[in-house]
């Protein structure tokens, strides 16, 4: 037993640095650059035409880009991600805060610098979703306060993306790559950095299964369609698949061996997802539709288990604590 553990430890040691560097250079850093590009394009589009119909496509592109790195909650993202994606919002802070700002025409809605200090409930992708898709907000006209607010929100999102990208590229990447070197107080060994990234992969899939899918499913007697993530824009299923694919790709980057069970699990997830009838999960009150969403949830968990088996086990890694451990 002890021999086996020592072998695991040495495999982890020799592999840790290479896998993490791969994940960083091929996945994480390009992912943040992609999010900056997409959110900058959204802000530019809003500058040209602020109305909701004009911004839905670039907003979706920005959300797609976010899913590549959105669940990696390390370094600058540890806190920074919260103002990009404030969700779930069990107490309705987003509509309350937006209504308050709009009815009072609060000056921060026209002031990029001041806007960086407003509640995260009014910032980021989910606040924008309500402005672009919810009937309570989406009817704003060019030249109105709502229009200025959306322009500020998109500019703020682009600024956040740029700050996250440079925070990773010019700062935290070095912390990860220098894991175990003298002076690195965050990661005392390459294995610690590896475990940190590995934990993000598993946490992402757990969040997708338990929250992105679990919230709208509710209980059989009481499904909760409006608790789905991004249901207003109909992105709920798309987010599940993109987030799962991003987690899978990160896992594959961490390994330098083939992961056939993981790849097969991802393929099966895509197959069962194709049978879901409403991509916003608004039909989960129908038992047959509900079952199809439950099957998707099962396959997200199967993907999680495949990654534990094909990546965690050979490396002797157990996941660390994740930021979703609270209730």
């Amino acid at each position: 037993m002890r021999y086996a553990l020592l072998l695991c430890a040495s495999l982890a040691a020799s592999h840790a640095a290479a896998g993490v560097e791969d994940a960083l250079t091929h996945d994480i850093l390009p992912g943040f650059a992609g999010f900056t590009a997409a959110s900058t394009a959204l802000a530019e589009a809003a500058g040209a035409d602020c109305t909701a119909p004009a911004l839905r496509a670039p907003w979706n592109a920005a959300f797609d880009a976010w899913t590549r790195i959105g669940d990696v909650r390390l370094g600058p993202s540890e806190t920074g991600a919260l103002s990009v994606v404030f969700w779930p919002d069990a107490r309705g802070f987003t509509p309350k805060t937006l209504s308050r700002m709009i009815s009072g025409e609060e000056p921060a809605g026209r002031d990029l610098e001041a806007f960086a200090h407003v509640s995260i409930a009014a910032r980021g992708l989910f606040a924008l979703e309500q402005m672009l898709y919810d009937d309570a907000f989406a009817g704003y006209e060019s030249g109105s306060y709502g229009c200025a607010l959306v322009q500020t929100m998109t500019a703020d999102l682009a600024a956040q993306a740029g700050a996250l990208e440079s925070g990773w590229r010019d700062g935290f990447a070095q912390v990860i790559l220098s894991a175990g070197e003298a002076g690195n107080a965050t990661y005392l060994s390459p294995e610690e950095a590896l475990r940190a990234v590995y934990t993000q992969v598993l946490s992402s899939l757990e969040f997708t299964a338990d929250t992105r899918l679990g919230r709208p499913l509710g209980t059989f007697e009481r499904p909760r369609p409006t608790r789905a993530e991004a249901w207003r824009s109909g992105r709920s299923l798309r987010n599940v698949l993109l987030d799962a694919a991003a987690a899978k790709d990160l896992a594959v980057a961490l390994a330098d061996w083939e992961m056939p069970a993981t790849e097969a699990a991802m393929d099966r997830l895509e197959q069962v997802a194709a049978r879901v009838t409403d991509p916003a999960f608004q039909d989960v009150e129908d038992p047959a539709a509900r079952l199809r969403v439950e099957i998707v949830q099962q396959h997200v968990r199967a993907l999680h288990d495949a990654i534990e088996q094909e990546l965690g086990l050979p490396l002797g890694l157990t996941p660390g604590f994740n930021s979703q451990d609270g209730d």
Partner: protein
Amino acid sequence: MKRATSTALALLLATPALAATDKAAVLDTYADIALAGYEDSLTTAKALQEAVAALIASPSEETLAAARSAWLAARNPYQQTEVFRFGNPIVDDWEGKVNAWPLDEGLIDYVDGSYMESDENEYAALNIIANPQVTLAGQAVDATEITPELIADTLNEADGIETNVARGYHAIEFLLWGQDLNGTGPGAGDRPYTDYASGDACTGGNCDRRADYLKAATDLLVSDLEEMVAAWGAEGDARETVTADENAGITAILTGMGSLSYGEQAGERMRLGLMLNDPEEEHDCFSDNTHNSHYYDGKGIQNVYLGSYTRIDGSAVEGPSLSALVAETDPALDAEMTAKLDTTMEKLGAIKTAAEGGFAYDQMLAPGDEKGEELVMGGVDALIDQTRTIERIVSALDLGGIDFEGSDSLDNPGSVFQ
């Protein structure tokens, strides 16, 4: 060379036999601290029960103030038990009965006109105290008599909504203080004692029903805490479960420490509230007691690591500690953990000191308040930092890790719906 290797291996293999601290004794200390913490929580809850009876019998500024003091005193030992929650399913399943939060208080009693119903909870403004007959999730509910059973079985988490918190410390807190309508400005809730007065002196309406609710909720708190004292007693379920398997038990201690530090306290309770700038997002929002709530949460984490708890009567419960166990494996790692726990207590202490000096926790959450942000984030960063060391301890102690055998979907793909 060969001999050197085998000697090193022999030493390595011999180390556990030489260990002075055995895991079973560490687990006994842990369970003893849990028992003492829940006993102290029960003792102070019974004092609260008496103070509430006095308030209801003769409402006055003095009896209301005494009930509030009793509530505050009851919180300190309870918060130190929160570390037992994560990692002990028996505690986690029970915890929602006593400490659920945040709550839509409009379910219970009158609220200010600016209070908005939430998208997710159509009962957020139900006001059971004013309404003896209500409909919940399609069912007519007779709330003529406000009893512990009505609160526990019908109102709490009504319609499966977690913010329908009808029982526990925070429901009682709301009934003693009322809403804090000062936003991020100074001041806590300011419910007048006349909310419990009889006849024409009654304010807020339905004073007798409010008194019934307060009494019933306090009685429930006492019986809930009795349940947890029993669970940690000599043959209690919680004690037997955590001591059944040494490695699993030590893992449970560390899981409780790490999950409370990171996801729950640093994340959900502190950082999120700060980033939402919402004064309702403070843990003890009616009484402005959040600084103590956070401080004693942190203290509980330190207690279980050091194997020492100071009881409300000043006596100590202590014994073989996790700290000693870690020190035998890696003294530097134990020193790192001890130092980080100290740092956290210093940062949480700074929040407590500032609040006691008049800078309340909800004021720290005000948008753009740099001093407040620095104080709160100081606590958050220290809690996150100590989590990393807890992870190191999990690795260093070789506790067996994850049970991969439990994965049905891999061992038997047919078990997953296709």
